[in-house]
């Protein structure tokens, strides 16, 4: 697949700006021939990745950088929040505790994992990079 099928996008952390990101995912999904359900799953996972970044990153720039990469395997989206990072195991434990207490929030990572074929989270004090792939 040609290298120039990559798309870079930077969006501000403003309400509903995740909808801007999903228009790119949709266009690229159509371009590579993903079926409608797969495209919708990518869009839903991307919404969760964006709103997680909006809510939790504490990024001083208040922007997230996205890269959409088309490969022979499918579409890979990287979301970099430029925030102060978090401990994934601690976050998962906190979410489990909240769910046990009946709280309804904290489903973003679970939804991303269920809706995409691969999800990786790499978090450090330089920010959190979520990389997720949907196979063709």
């Amino acid at each position, binding site marked *: 697949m040609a290298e120039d099928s990559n798309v870079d996008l930077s969006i501000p952390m403003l309400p509903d700006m995740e909808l801007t990101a999903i228009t790119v995912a949709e266009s690229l999904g159509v371009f590579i021939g993903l079926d409608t359900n797969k495209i919708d799953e990518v869009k839903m996972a991307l919404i969760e990745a964006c709103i997680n970044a909006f809510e939790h990153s504490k990024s001083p720039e208040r922007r997230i950088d996205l890269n959409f990469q088309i490969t022979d395997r499918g579409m890979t989206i990287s979301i970099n929040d430029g925030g102060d990072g978090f401990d994934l195991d601690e976050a998962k434990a906190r979410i489990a505790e909240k769910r046990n207490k009946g709280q309804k929030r904290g*489903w973003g990572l679970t939804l991303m994992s269920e*809706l995409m074929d691969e999800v990786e989270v790499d978090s450090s004090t330089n920010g959190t990079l979520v990389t997720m792939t949907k196979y063709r």
Partner: protein
Amino acid sequence: MSSDSPLVSSVVGETAVLQSQSYVNDKAADALAQECQKLAAEGIRHFIINMQDSKMVNSIGIAVVIEMIEKAIENNGSVSFCCASPTIAKTFQIMGLRQLSAIYDSEEEAIASIE
């Protein structure tokens, strides 16, 4: 009983049919929940959310919807859904909403389930 809300498409007996918005985020879900609360105060117990116009949802919006379902159940009522896309239905499944609520293919089926 009647409602002039654009979210409410019909009210018959103790059942109201509401239309969800294109993107069910926290604001859209709050609007639905508030409308259901108003209708509940007027004696409506069963709510059908027609999702034919909804293309996307997010987990914050669904969390609000789950609270709305729990309130309806506490009031001996129900919230059911119809015309949801496969991805929205899958998202409901993942978040456990389907343990509390049914999803029907059509509005007619959803209404018939209550009658």
